[in-house]
Every structure is written in structure tokens, then in C-alpha cells.
């Protein structure tokens, strides 16, 4: 670039070229060291004793049960949090009411509270020692050490993602398009479906993908409420930890690699949609 530019060409930023190179190298080095190398290590360890060993360890009933449980939890928690997130963002951006600031703070709470504390709160509220928990156990629907507790913990921890992505977008877009739809005779539901939802779909997609990634990877809160019962309440991250602690490193890393692959699928899906709808995306941003 510098050799094609005229002699008077100068950029507004004053950093010397050497400094720019140093900065770039530092960032790249950190990226490789912190993100890329561990990821490679996971796959290296998983496949270190050959494909057959890795696949056999995944075919183990415990591993299969963990994968099934993690996918089930994500399949319940993510859609519910999507609905709650849209509802919360809608309420916050389209209406003025008392206690709005408090609601925004509450939505962010799971970000600032340690997941372990979230897990303990669920145990205290719904555990067999509380009156709600006792009632639920009597009715045959225990929450703690069972699927409902795991779903609940995952939902609390991933609650902010969808709303957080949507609120800035919806604030920026304002209410005018919705009001226009109403004056044209559309009902509230039709307005939401044909005007609001198409306008927020990209932010919504990002929120859902982030929510999904976190729901599948959640460890802290789930480890407290699940009881870590093998083959029953052990999700993938928990099973990975248990296998690793038992020196079954191939099995642990093989499962870790599957979890990483699920994250890649999420990422690939996002990129694919971005490329496929690049025009619509650009048009929406240009307006």
C-alpha cells in the first residue's frame, strides 16, 4: 500500500509502522497461544491413539447419554430463552414504564453472578429441604439432581444473551415502522410478525447462537444442580471433567472434541447465513 500511495500520503493515526507490526504480532501470538493451540491440543489428544479408540470411547453408553442430555437441555433452554429474550427486549424498547432500569439490571444479573452461586440458589429453592422442593419430590417431579434443574440452571445462566443482542438494535430502529404498520390496519401480532421480526432477525440469530453455545458448554451451575449421576444427569462438560479426573484422557478429549465440533457447527451456520444473506444484511444496514 505504501509504495503505491503518493509521497504526501499520511494516515490520521500517528503510530509508526514498526509499532503497528509489533501490535499485530502480539495480537496474533495471543490468539494462537490462547485460542488456537488449546483447540489443536484437544483434537491431538483425542485422536492420539487413533480414530478407532476415540470413536469407541464415544460409543460408550455414558458418553452417548451425556451427548443426548446436553442436546436435550439446549433444545429446551434455547427456544424458551429466545421467547423470553424477545419479550423482554420488546417491553424495554417499545414501552416506557416505571422500574425499566431495574428490569435491565435484572436481565444482566446472570452475567455478574457466578454460575456456581446460581446452582446453589436453585438447590436452596427447589432442593428436597425446601418446602417447594419437598412438594415437587412428593409429586414425583424432582427438580434438583434431575433434568428440570439442569434446564433451569442453563436457562438462568444464558438468559441475557438474546435480550442483550436485541435491545441495542431495537432502540436504534425506534417505533416508527411498527406505528406505520398499525396505522395501515395491522394487528399487534401481524406487526410483530411482518415488521419487527424481519428487522431484528440478524441480531436475534446472533443472540440465539450465543445462547446455544453457552447452554451446551455450561459447567458451573449445572455441576451443582445435576448431582453428576453418570448416565443420567451428567452433561457433556461434566462427563468430560469426570473422565479426565479418572485419567481416561482419550475418552475425555474425544468428548471435548465433539463439544468443540458442536461449537464449530454453530459458527459455520452463522457464517453460512451471513454469506447467503449478505445483500439483505447490507441493505438493512445502509438504510
Amino acid at each position, binding site marked *: 500500500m505504501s509504495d503505491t500511495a503518493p509521497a504526501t500520503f499520511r494516515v490520521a493515526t500517528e503510530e509508526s509502522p514498526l509499532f503497528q507490526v509489533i501490535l499485530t504480532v502480539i495480537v496474533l501470538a495471543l490468539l494462537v497461544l490462547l485460542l488456537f493451540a488449546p483447540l489443536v491440543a484437544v483434537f491431538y489428544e483425542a485422536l492420539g491413539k487413533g480414530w478407532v479408540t476415540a470413536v469407541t470411547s464415544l460409543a460408550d453408553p455414558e458418553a452417548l447419554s451425556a451427548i443426548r442430555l446436553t442436546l436435550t437441555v439446549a433444545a429446551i433452554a434455547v427456544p424458551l430463552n429466545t421467547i423470553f429474550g424477545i419479550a423482554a427486549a420488546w417491553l424495554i424498547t417499545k414501552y416506557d414504564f416505571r422500574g425499566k432500569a431495574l428490569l435491565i439490571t435484572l436481565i444482566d444479573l446472570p452475567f455478574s453472578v457466578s454460575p456456581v452461586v446460581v446452582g446453589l440458589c436453585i438447590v436452596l429453592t427447589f432442593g428436597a429441604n425446601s418446602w417447594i422442593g419437598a412438594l415437587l419430590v412428593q409429586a414425583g417431579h424432582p427438580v434438583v439432581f434431575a433434568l428440570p434443574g439442569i434446564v433451569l440452571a442453563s436457562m438462568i445462566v444464558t438468559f441475557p444473551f438474546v435480550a442483550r443482542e436485541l435491545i441495542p438494535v431495537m432502540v436504534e430502529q425506534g417505533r*416508527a*415502522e411498527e*406505528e*406505520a*404498520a*398499525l*396505522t*395501515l*390496519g*395491522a*394487528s399487534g401480532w*401481524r406487526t410483530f410478525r*411482518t*415488521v419487527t421480526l*424481519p*428487522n431484528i432477525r440478524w441480531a436475534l440469530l446472533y443472540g440465539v447462537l450465543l445462547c446455544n453455545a453457552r447452554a451446551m458448554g455450561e459447567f458451573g451451575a449445572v455441576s451443582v444442580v445435576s448431582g453428576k449421576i453418570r448416565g443420567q444427569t451428567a452433561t457433556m462438560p461434566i462427563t468430560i471433567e469426570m473422565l479426565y479426573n479418572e485419567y481416561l484422557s482419550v475418552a475425555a478429549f474425544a468428548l471435548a472434541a465433539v463439544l468443540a465440533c458442536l461449537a464449530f457447527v454453530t459458527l459455520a451456520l452463522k457464517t453460512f447465513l451471513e454469506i447467503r444473506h449478505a445483500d*439483505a444484511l447490507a*441493505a*438493512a444496514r*445502509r*438504510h
Partner: protein
Amino acid sequence: MHIDIDEISKLFGTTAALSPVSLAIPSGALVALLGPSGSGKTTLLRILGGLEFPTSGRVLFDGQDATGLSVQDRRVGFVFQSYALFRHMTVFDNIAYGLNARPRATRPQKAEIARRVTKLLELIQLPDIGARYPSQLSGGQRQRVALARALAIEPRMLLLDEPFGALDAKVRKELRQGLRDLHDTTGLTTIFVTHDQEEAMELADLVVVMSMGRIEQIGKPQDIRAKPASAFVREFISA
């Protein structure tokens, strides 16, 4: 249709956006609500459109009480300040939106909707832009599409919030005449909000000068020029 505004007031929290105001608008008139920002003119327009509801007072359409009528049931053509076109829809779909939103029983057939949209595109003299997206239009074109979209629902009146505010001076002059012509062909009672006294005086049959939530003067442009009712009006129209 003629519109009666009967002692309308509007409080936002504890601040009064409108002190009780009354106004009679004859059928088929082209009316300007003129005033500086914060004078309550947009609030009054939004109350007529059903986007806000008054704290007290009544709105009458052709003598019928319409105060509690929902925005959907008012059948008011509303043009928003920045036009609020649906950015993810083509111009055609924008204009067809109101017809598609009708309940099945009164919704026109697809071919009929297409015919009406084509006719509206001809009316705004932009017959070839149906397939474009709002982001591909100029400011003046957007304004005319917003007008066509509002007219598609066969409105009982036309309300426009600063319709020329987002345009440069040359386009503004052209579109002023465009609105005048549109009003004369459709015969719709038309009310627009503006802070530009020249625009109000040149375009409107009746000018309503507002300040601080009150109506300062109602009259024909020449009468207001000749006999300003207050010091505020004199100063505002000479600016």
C-alpha cells in the same frame, strides 16, 4: 370528513404537552399545524391518528365520537417524519401492506392489490420503482412512496408529520406542489405538521399556529399575515 377537536389535553407524566385545545377542521381542507418544537403540534397529530390518547377531551370525525377508536379502526393515512418505510420490503410490498393486512373477508384479490399498487405508483409518478428497496430510493422518492402507502388503505383523512423535513430545499419546493396536487385530486382532509412558516403559508388553506401546547391563532394564511393575534405569532411568522 370534517374533524372536531374538543378541549383536548395531553399530559406526559406531569408535563402538559397540550393544554386544552379546540379546533374545527372543515371537510376537504388542507391544514398546517405550525409551531416551534415542543409546541404540541406533533402530539395533536398523533392524537388524531390514534397513536396517542388524550388525557381529557374528545375527537369527533364527522360528528361521531372517535376518541377511543383504535389506530387500526381509524383508517387514517399517516406519513411519518422519516417516512418509516419497511426497510426489508420492496416498494410494491410497502404500498400493498395495508391491503394485505385487511381481514380475509374484505381483503382484495392478489390481482386487484397489484392493480391498485400500480395505480398508486402512477399517481406518485414513480411507475417503475415497485421492485426496489427503500434504501435504493432518494429522499423525495421515499416521501412519495410513504404517501402512496398511506393512500392505499383508502384513508378517511391524511396526516403528515413534517413531510418535507428530511429533504433538501429544491426537492422540498417540488414536493410541496406534489402534495397540493394530491390533495386536490383526492379531496381528502389533509393535516400536516411543520415548523417552517413559509411552507405552511404557501401550502395550506388554514394555518393553526401553536406554541407551548396552546393554539395561538387559527386562520387563512393571508389573515394571519395581516393580523397576527399575538406577539408570538408576529415574531414567528416574520422569522
